[in-house]
């Protein structure tokens, strides 16, 4: 009856390592799928916050105030339980007998993207403020349009300045993915929890989950280090 720790942690039908590895894959996928959405929303929210138009500033500030002020778990539950109600209400206007089923992965992705973008917008905003006005004026002076100035002059500098802050946002995104296990997504923590409940080796399997997150953090610090070096190289070459 008592299995050894190594059997429990082996790959295959007796062990749980394959289940936890699939959970880790879901964790990474969720974080990677969230990242581009969050970055895009965050960039535009930052653009709104530093706009000269007051109404745009107010709208952007409401966004960050709400989503940085709410606990991540509350946001998740609000969207996971409240979102279907609204969707159902809207869809029943067209098709009365439709029912809505929310995918935990998609719900998690939306909520994490919103939270990530609220934090990333602050990073982008301070990076925008670090870029001197002369850069915009120089862009206009050589005849670039607003969009071209943004893309060719401002964005390359912005990325370099914002990168360390965005790295922190990425790490907290990676950790926040564990919250989605609460609404039933089979990611690392949930898989570890199942293994713990079945085998009664609770400490062992939650330690494994912690180790997975630590390994992911180490891997991303290597990756971000490499990106940062290449950014710095490009900076030096100019």
């Amino acid at each position, binding site marked *: 009856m008592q299995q050894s720790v190594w059997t429990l942690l082996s790959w295959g039908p007796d062990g749980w390592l394959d289940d936890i590895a699939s959970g880790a894959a879901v964790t990474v996928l969720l974080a990677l799928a969230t990242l581009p959405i969050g970055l895009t929303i965050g960039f535009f929210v930052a653009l709104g916050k530093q706009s*000269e138009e007051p109404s*745009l500033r107010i709208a952007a500030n409401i966004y960050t105030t709400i989503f940085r002020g709410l606990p991540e778990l509350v946001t998740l539950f609000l969207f996971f339980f409240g979102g279907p109600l609204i969707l159902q209400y809207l869809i029943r206007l067209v098709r009365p007998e439709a029912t809505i089923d929310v995918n935990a992965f998609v719900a998690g992705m939306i909520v994490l993207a919103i939270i990530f973008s609220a934090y990333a917008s602050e990073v982008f905003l301070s990076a925008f403020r670090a870029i001197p006005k002369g850069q915009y004026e120089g862009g206009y002076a050589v005849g670039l349009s607003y969009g071209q100035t943004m893309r060719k002059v401002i964005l390359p500098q912005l990325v370099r300045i914002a990168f360390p802050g965005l790295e922190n946002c990425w790490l907290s995104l990676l950790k926040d993915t564990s919250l989605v296990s609460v609404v039933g997504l089979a990611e690392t923590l949930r898989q570890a929890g199942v293994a713990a409940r079945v085998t009664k080796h609770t400490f062992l399997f*939650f330690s494994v989950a912690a180790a997975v997150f630590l390994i992911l953090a180490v891997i991303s610090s290597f990756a971000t280090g490499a990106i940062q070096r290449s950014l710095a190289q490009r900076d030096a070459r100019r």
Partner: protein
Amino acid sequence: MSVAADAKNVVERPPPRARGWPRSRIVGYVLIGVWVAAGGGIVAYLAFAWNSELFAKYGPSYLQGLGVTLSLVGISIVLGAILSLPVAYARMSKNRVLSGLAYCYVYFFRGTPLLVQTFLVYYGVGSFKPQLEMVGLWGFFREAFNCGVFAFALNTAAYQAEILRGAIESVPRGQWEGAASLGLHKLQTLWKIILPQALVVALRPYGNELILMIKASAIVAIITVYDLMGMAKLTYARTFDIQAYIWVAVVYLVIVEVLRHAIEWIERRITIHLKR
């Protein structure tokens, strides 16, 4: 004479506000319209779904939950602050082993989700039941609230140690040397010279940590502690009424905003002497 007067009158004015309807204004008004509609929708829903019976039944339990949340955060912040002192000391020490250990501690607690740490404590201690019973700590860990406090205090100690270290290292070395040349010993220097300067720097990160803890405390609801979020979960489970979560969101938002403004106010007060 007149030239000098003219030169004085030339001030750089901000560009005049755009007239008419530039694109950014249209987008801004539309977005504000969306917010007003969303806010109005929620208020209308709450007014429409107002149920004073439900409110009388669950309102007091929300207050009770708020008390649990605040005491959980209060206790763990204070315990974490105490625990962060040796960790910060070890992290700054020249002893490689000591600083390495402190680094590992900080890395573990900052690198893994708080939810995992909480599960590790709450479910994980079961694996050590015989040993804990032997030292008489089993009674402590059987309570979910205590497990929450334990995990949160360890977690916040790691963050607070980093805040403290950053703040102390932000004070220039010359301050230490100056104090040494006046004949103050290390502890006196730390207490009278370094800390007053470091804490001004540390106030904002400490405030952020407090806000983060309040927000993070919602996760103890998952390990069956009836804090604010736990009460909302309970109410939702019994009534299937989304109001349960809307009200709890409002309460959290109010707490966080009040704290944020209070911290900004304190920071303005204590940095008055640094303004020119």
